[in-house]
């Protein structure tokens, strides 16, 4: 037990470098002022103690001093604010070319789904040096995806997708924690990220027993559930044509315009009446209780794939997937 006394977490992502730089700045500044206050209190308590200074000198106060210790802290605070905000805005905006991993949290485990079809539980393999975006949803209560070595954290909500991202800088195995209290085995909802050299990662991806890509699973489900009867790939269907839909603005029958993102697609499957596309009647039945979160993710992945110019090669093309929103499709399937 006493062999290890870690004082600083491993730095294993691009964001970790920036977060640590700000952390060191904060430690220096707050350390200086804290020590200053402690020393002043100690000196005043000794220098002006009753025995040495029996009669106090009455001082009313000083506007100049009040202004000084209002404005100087304020100025320092603004530096902290702007610096912290810069890091946060990077954290909040995944790069458009990030590779995607889908995450489902449930009491008390993490399920990771790679677009190529690999599924993992409580373990996530990622390639070194690539930006990875996690699109996450919870099946029950609020969970939290926390990757301390990457300095990344994001709540995982039931009912809507949240995303976070990281770009690794060091191969190794790192912690995955659930940070949002979720019941009995909250502390057991942990796992690890395995950061691999790209070549090893490719080998890992092509090994195993994946049953086809996530989008192809979604395609099968799309047929099985009968979605294709109405959502035809021409203009004759009773539902909107989904080709080229993803990432585009959609005009609704109440005049609003929404963007067809992951959350919109998920909502349209579960509560079709909430946002009906202009020119269509609200005839779609709900799929609440029929499809689970993992199946929903495969449907989302399939509908996304309908907006990509080429069916991605499962392995090689991952280096540069098309940016979102993708251009109009060149072919339909």
């Amino acid at each position, binding site marked *: *037990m006493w062999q*290890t*006394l*870690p*004082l*600083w*977490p491993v730095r294993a992502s691009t964001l970790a470098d*920036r*977060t640590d730089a*700000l*952390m060191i700045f*904060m430690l220096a500044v707050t350390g200086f*002022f*804290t020590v200053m*206050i*402690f020393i002043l*209190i100690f000196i*005043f*308590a000794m220098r*002006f103690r*009753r025995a040495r*200074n*029996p009669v*106090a*000198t009455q*001082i*009313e*106060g*000083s506007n100049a*001093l*009040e202004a000084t*210790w*209002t404005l100087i*802290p304020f100025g320092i*605070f*603004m530096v*902290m*604010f702007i*610096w*912290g*905000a810069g*890091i*946060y805005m990077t*954290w909040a*905006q995944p790069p458009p070319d990030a590779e995607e991993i889908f995450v489902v949290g449930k009491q008390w485990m993490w399920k990771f789904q790679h677009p190529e079809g690999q599924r993992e539980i409580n373990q996530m393999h990622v390639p070194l040096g690539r930006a990875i975006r996690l699109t996450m949803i919870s099946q029950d*209560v*609020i969970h939290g995806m926390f990757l*301390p*070595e990457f300095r990344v*954290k994001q709540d995982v*909500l*039931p*009912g*809507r997708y949240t995303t976070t991202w990281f770009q690794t800088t060091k191969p190794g195995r790192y912690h995955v*924690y659930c*940070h*949002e*209290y979720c019941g009995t085995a*909250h*502390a057991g909802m942990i796992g690890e990220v395995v950061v691999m050299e790209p070549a090893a990662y490719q080998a890992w991806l092509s090994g195993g027993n994946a049953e086809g890509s996530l989008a192809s699973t979604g395609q099968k489900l799309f047929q099985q559930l009968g979605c294709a009867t109405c959502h035809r790939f021409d203009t004759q269907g009773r539902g909107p044509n989904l080709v080229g839909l993803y990432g585009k603005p959609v005009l609704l029958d109440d005049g609003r315009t929404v963007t067809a993102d992951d959350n919109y697609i998920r909502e349209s499957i579960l509560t079709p009446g909430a946002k009906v596309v202009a020119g269509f009647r609200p005839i779609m039945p709900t799929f609440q209780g029929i499809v689970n979160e993992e199946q929903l993710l495969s449907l989302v992945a399939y509908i996304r794939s309908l907006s990509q110019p080429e069916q991605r090669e499962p392995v090689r093309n991952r280096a540069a997937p098309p940016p979102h929103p993708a251009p109009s499709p060149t072919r339909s399937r």
Partner: protein
Amino acid sequence: MATVTVPAVERENYLNTDFTVKSWLLTTDHKRIAILYLLSITAMFFVGGIAATLIRIELLTPAGDLMSSDTYNKMFSIHGIIMVFFFLIPSIPAVLGNFLVPMMIGAKDLAFPKINLASWYFYITGAGLLMYVILTGGVDTGWTFYVPYSSTYSNSNVITAIAGIFLAGFSSIFTGFNFIVTIHRMRAPGLTWGRLPLFIWSHYATSVIMVLGTPVVAIALSLVALERAFHMGIFDPRLGGDPLLFQHMFWFYSHPAVYIMILPSMAVISEVVSTFSRKRIFGYMAVALASISIAVFGFLVWAHHMFVAGMSAYAALVFSLLSYFVAVPSAIKVFNWTATMYKGSVSLNTPMLYAMGFIGLFTMGGMTGLYLSALGIDVQVHHTYFVIAHFHYIMVGGAVMGYLAGIHYWWPKISGRMYPEAWGKIAAGTIFIGFNLTFFPQFVLGYLGMPRRYHSYPPEYQVLNVMSTAGASILAVGYVLPLAYLLWSLRYGEVAPDNPWAATGLEWRTPSPPPTENFPETPIVTWEAYDYSTVREEPVAR
């Protein structure tokens, strides 16, 4: 020390005027109600403390081996609920505020004495409900009651716990508006706002928060109960609700609640630092206005608890900026207290030791709040032990140190006896050392990534957790000591003079303990607060 000389004919005071149980339970005397609160919050503090002790013992080892996960989850929930709603929020306002607000402004009682008594009955009923919850299986939602866990998934006694908190909330609304009316309407002749002790300014700010904030958490928790009991779709997305709505409503109160806990402590510190430096508080008006601006800005920062909750990034920028605004008045206070000691005539009695401890620990708590306000850092440390350490520095290092400073400072007035000074200093030192050893390692744990509310943890965090638990055992001794020697002093302590510290406040110009009507005749105030230039008498106590 063994034989204490009791005056042959004891003066009639609020304690010896009637000894029946009925005279206590049906009293409308603000001082007796303060004593009722003192007894009840002390009991609650030790219940919450037992839960904390069990948590720290469990965390000695990485494996969850002392108790089951469910029991552990109930322990930290009970610890949080009791300490926040049943100890910290009522601590200084309901005990010291109740006792002192009328006395400091030269009034005979609060504006609504019966409502004051009703507030204690609400409190004690709420506390009783919570004891019932503990005895019938507990509650495991954490003190934050996040949905949909609390409204749909938890199998514990959530609704009863919410009912208890709801009642305690009403007691604090009653106390708050009683103070507001009293401070506006019942000040002695000549006691203008510019002459009020800073204790009153701070309690005024606290009361405003209590009255404006508490109804919101009462509504939020009631909605959780409704969703849980009747499946009304408010927060659970499966029922068409929004879980983030709950977080907004909860923190709209529960962030200002932090200021309900710390402002009254700041009130005590202003009094104590001034008295034991024998000097007017430096920058009186700056400190008074800082209290008010903390109360105002405190209402505008709630969503800094939600930077990683799935909220808009642009909203996060605004709340981060506003969080830095609220840090400025706190910094102003720290600098002014420190400057008050400059060229003072400082004596290091127990209350002053606690006050100095408060300034240091509150500074550290405040400084680490700056880390949490910095968005990029918060992404790493949110929901980790860094946050635990930060708010314990504010609430234990700050609020509890302030409470103990106040209890010792006004003990002669409340009880009519002096506490034993040597033991007081030993306890103050023990608490300071134990506290830092308990909570400083948790900052490190938090940045390393140890999440809060974890029953078990990876083995590399063990050394720091063992340090923390060792500190907690010292801290526990530090808390039992005052309980022991203050009780001892009731019988064996020196009889207190009316003004042992030669302080300037109105509460010291009446006998110790005070008569039921506080002042034989209403004082007329012609002097500023903390006017030590005119005080000629010397402190009687060492």
